[in-house]
């Protein structure tokens, strides 16, 4: 066994290596050269009796032959043996130097010089030849190694997975080194795991098995253990140094192992086996060390890439899950998506989801996939009373991981379910968000999973996504229920029943069908008999919008009961909205309909204009009364517009959902509705359906829509009933309303004038009597049988003698008597009732003396009372 070390030793090693393998052959050649030289001399003396000159010539030839065969040492040996022998044996049996004469010595010396020259020249030539050959071989080898290293570098660069890197290292480096085979192993704990290896037989010599303790006496383990290069030059060294590896093969003579490091620590090692001894050259070690560095870098890159890829893949799977979950708005949808995506996204073999039961006392199986229905029987319904992994995860809100099922209690129903389905690893997660747990998620695997931290983290993320979606869905569901309830409670249960008006109303939720909007409508009768119609829109969805809407609706009703003028009502409402925290953006159209007088007064606060369809069926928008949306500027006075509504006219109130479409402008929408209204002659119900159908023909309704339609109908013949406040305004309305009714009855102007004036007198009397609370009212009822109209005026006060400047009063009753066919004043406990009757045909009244003349008694008394 050798190792890297001292420079002097390096030099020695190099010398030894150069001599080493050829030493034996050289000794043989040298001996042969000497033998040849001796044989040549003896042959020359014994057989040929050569002259000394010839003998030396032959000797030189023998030296040349020895040179040829054995190289320089053989040639030198031949010279030493031959010339030494020649110098002493040439004079037979004398064994003394032959140089008895000068010539003899010169010949000997000359031939010796010739032989030396032959040897020198031959050696020089042979050496030059050898050097060239070695250089060529070395150049070829270097080229091949360089190529192999380049190839290795290329394949390492291309390796994107750790297994590619391992393959490149084990095979590519072995090739670059010219090794028989190799192995690449990674340290895992106190073991070394061979992840890639070349052919089995040579591999075993350096790495006896594919998974071995680091303590094994094998080159690869030693390199990994000691963190340095390890090599052996011979099989004997291998046997001595690494008995665990060496006994497995005899074909390996030398071996090299280098550690693979990352950031200072050894993560693994590579080992290579060579058939010939002494193959572990400095260059090979350098190549192997370089390859180990490159390999380590490539491994790190591959590891990062792998992590990134895994992360990206997981992120991608989670994203598609998130996208799918975002669409799910009810818990059942969430469960279905978890079931569908669970296996693919979480990488599990089985998924089951349990939700807490309605009663909150059990977990109910909501869905599963990858599992057999029959094996799920034991966990279909799990009482929270009974302990188990699922119930525990729910109750404690903590996940549990089971790489093996051993940790599960023997009586856990989950154990039966999993074992029955061949699941060997499992994880259980609570499903919910921020302490609200709604159920549990089970993931199961049929192959044992170590469930390492990063896997737990990913599965946890998956469960958390599902839990949040579930929580959202459950909260959404409850909010939607609340919002729906709120909205339904806000929309009037029934529209008022008023003679002379027919109503229709609709509320359509938005297209998604799940978002409750802030649209509303309301219709109510005011204390003076007029009718308030309102359609409004609170921007926003859900409970907040619905709650605001409720507030607006109630406030509007309250303000409307106090303020006759729609402008005042809207101004108050605007003030109220302005004062709300997080003032909502709200618009409305408020219209007060005075049925008897056929008029309406309206305000449109940031709302689309109401549509009026006149009695001839021509629709037009009510463009007046426009003001800002509620709460925008509560100090701007609100202008009220007025419109006349003949019998047969229809007013259509709606919210913007009707006229706003994503694919068209607002004007298009308004025109569509107008055209729709123009194309039909129908009552409110049919009209509303017709408009809705046309408005959304071929398009999906996106927003919610509230609509309220009122149509003025002819008053029921013969019936007139009006209760009015006992004040000046009430009197005026009475006059107008009665005139309208009479007109519709077909009464001529003269008759109308008489009847209205008579009723006025009666009512004025009632108003004068009304004392005390401002809320006093009077009531005018009318009946008609085609020929005669009968009126009845009742007040809550007491019919008293006309007061004030005496002479100016008291003409009322005579006037009534003069105008009407019959006048009766009846005193009742609740007040006074005046009955008036009059034929509908004009007549010339026969005067009834109201005054007896111009003489003194101008103050009429009570008559007929």
């Amino acid at each position: 066994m050798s190792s890297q070390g001292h420079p002097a030793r390096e030099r020695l090693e190099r010398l030894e290596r150069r001599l080493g393998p050829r030493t034996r052959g050289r000794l043989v050649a040298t001996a042969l050269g000497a033998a040849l030289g001796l044989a040549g001399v003896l042959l020359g003396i014994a057989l040929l009796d050569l002259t000394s000159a010839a003998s030396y010539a032959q000797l030189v030839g023998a030296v040349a032959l020895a040179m040829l065969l054995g190289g320089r040492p053989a040639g030198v040996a031949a010279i030493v043996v031959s010339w030494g022998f020649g110098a002493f044996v040439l004079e037979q049996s004398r064994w003394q130097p032959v140089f008895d004469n000068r010539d003899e010595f010169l010949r000997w010396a000359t031939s010796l010089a010739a032989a030396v020259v032959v040897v020198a020249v031959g050696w020089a030539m042979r050496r030059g030849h050898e050097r060239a050959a070695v250089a060529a071989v070395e150049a070829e080898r270097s080229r091949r190694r360089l190529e192999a290293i380049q190839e290795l570098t290329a394949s390492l660069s291309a390796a994107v997975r750790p297994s590619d890197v391992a393959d490149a290292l084990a095979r590519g480096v072995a090739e670059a080194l010219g090794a028989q085979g190799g192995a690449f192993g990674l340290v895992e704990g106190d073991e070394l795991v061979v992840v890639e290896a070349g052919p089995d037989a040579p591999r075993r010599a350096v790495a006896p098995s594919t998974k071995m303790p680091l303590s094994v006496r094998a080159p690869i383990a030693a390199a990994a253990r000691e963190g340095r290069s390890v090599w052996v030059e011979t099989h004997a060294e291998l046997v001595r140094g690494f008995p665990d590896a060496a006994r497995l093969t005899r074909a390996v003579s030398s071996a090299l192992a280098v550690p693979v490091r990352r950031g200072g620590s050894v993560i693994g090692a590579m080992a290579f086996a060579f058939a010939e001894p002494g193959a572990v050259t400095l260059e090979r070690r350098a190549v192997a060390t370089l390859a180990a560095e490159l390999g380590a870098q490539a491994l790190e890159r591959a590891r990062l890439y792998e992590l990134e890829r895994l992360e990206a893949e997981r992120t991608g799977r989670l994203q598609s899950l998130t996208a799918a979950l975002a669409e799910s708005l009810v818990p059942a949808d969430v469960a279905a998506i978890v079931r569908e995506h669970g296996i693919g996204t979480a990488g599990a073999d089985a998924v089951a989801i349990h939700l807490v039961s309605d009663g909150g006392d059990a977990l109910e199986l909501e869905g599963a996939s990858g599992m057999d229905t029959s094996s799920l029987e034991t966990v279909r319904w799990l009482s929270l009373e009974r302990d188990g992994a699922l119930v525990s995860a729910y109750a404690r809100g903590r996940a549990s991981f089971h790489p093996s099922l051993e940790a599960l209690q023997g009586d856990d129903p989950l154990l039966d379910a999993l074992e029955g389905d061949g699941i060997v690893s499992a994880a259980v997660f609570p499903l919910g968000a921020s302490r609200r747990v709604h159920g549990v998620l089970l993931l199961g695997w049929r192959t044992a999973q170590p469930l390492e931290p990063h896997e737990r983290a990913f599965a946890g993320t998956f469960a958390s996504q599902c839990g949040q979606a579930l929580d959202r869905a459950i909260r959404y569901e409850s909010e939607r229920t609340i919002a729906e309830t709120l909205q339904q409670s806000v929309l009037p249960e029934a529209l008022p029943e008023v003679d002379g008006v027919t109503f229709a109303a609709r509320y359509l939720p938005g297209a998604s069908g799940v978002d409750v909007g802030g649209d509303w409508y309301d219709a109510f009768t005011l204390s003076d008999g007029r009718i308030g119609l309102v359609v409004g829109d609170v921007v926003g969805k859900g409970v907040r919008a619905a709650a605001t809407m409720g507030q607006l609706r109630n406030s509007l009703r309250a303000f409307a009961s106090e303020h006759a003028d729609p402008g005042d009502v809207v101004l108050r409402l605007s003030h109220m909205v302005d004062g709300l925290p997080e003032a909502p953006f709200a618009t409305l159209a408020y219209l007060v309909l005075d049925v008897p007088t056929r008029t309406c007064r309206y305000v449109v606060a940031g709302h689309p204009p109401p549509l009026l369809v006149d009695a001839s069926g021509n629709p037009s928008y009510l463009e007046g009364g426009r003001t800002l949306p509620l709460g925008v500027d509560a100090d701007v006075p609100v202008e009220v517009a007025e419109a006349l509504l003949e019998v047969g006219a229809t007013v259509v109130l709606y919210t913007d959902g009707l006229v706003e479409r994503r694919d068209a402008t607002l004007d298009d929408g308004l025109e569509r509705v107008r055209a729709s209204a123009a194309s039909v002659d129908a009552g409110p119900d049919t009209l509303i359906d017709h408009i809705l159908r046309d408005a959304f023909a071929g398009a999906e309704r996106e927003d919610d829509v509230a609509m309220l339609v009122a149509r003025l109908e002819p008053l029921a013949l013969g019936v007139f009933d009006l209760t009015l406040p006992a004040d000046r305004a009430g009197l005026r309305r009475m006059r107008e309303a009665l005139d309208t009714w009479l007109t519709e009855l077909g009464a001529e102007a003269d008759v109308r004038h008489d009847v209205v004036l008579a009723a006025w007198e009666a009512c004025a009397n009632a108003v004068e009597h009304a004392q005390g609370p401002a809320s006093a009212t009077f009531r005018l009822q009318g009946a008609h049988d085609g020929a005669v109209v009968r009126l009845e005026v009742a007040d809550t006060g007491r019919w008293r003698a006309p007061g004030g400047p005496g002479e100016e009063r008291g003409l009322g009753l005579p006037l009534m008597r003069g105008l009407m066919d019959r006048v009766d004043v009846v005193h009742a406990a609740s007040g006074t009732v005046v009955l008036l009757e009059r034929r509908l045909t004009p007549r010339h009244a026969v005067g009834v003396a109201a005054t007896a003349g111009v003489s003194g008694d101008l103050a009429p008394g009570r008559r007929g009372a």
Partner: protein
Amino acid sequence: MTAEMDDRPTTHERTAVDVIRQSPDVAVLVLHGQADLHSAPELREQLHGVIDEGAFHVVVDLTDASFVDSMTLGVLLGGVKRLRPQGGQLRVVVDKPGLRRIFEVTLLDRVFSLYDTRSEALERL
């Protein structure tokens, strides 16, 4: 009900009394629109005013009035009572049959002299 509405006169409800002094002796009161109990105080004030200022003959022109009630009649009757001791007259210009009928049915056409036009009413003064 509401004070707001009461204070909010609208055009067709407006009542006004215009006073035209023809001569120191003769005053013309022109009534517009609804001459009812609500406008009666103003009419009374103007009527008494011109009489107190010495108008001997008063012509009340109802040509432009659309509605006349008993309270207005009462005020006019009160005017007659004030003029009578001085021998003055109160003449009423009324052209609408409906309004004329009011005077007829109350027999006030016998108390006031009714004329169809203002010029007729002023003619013989």
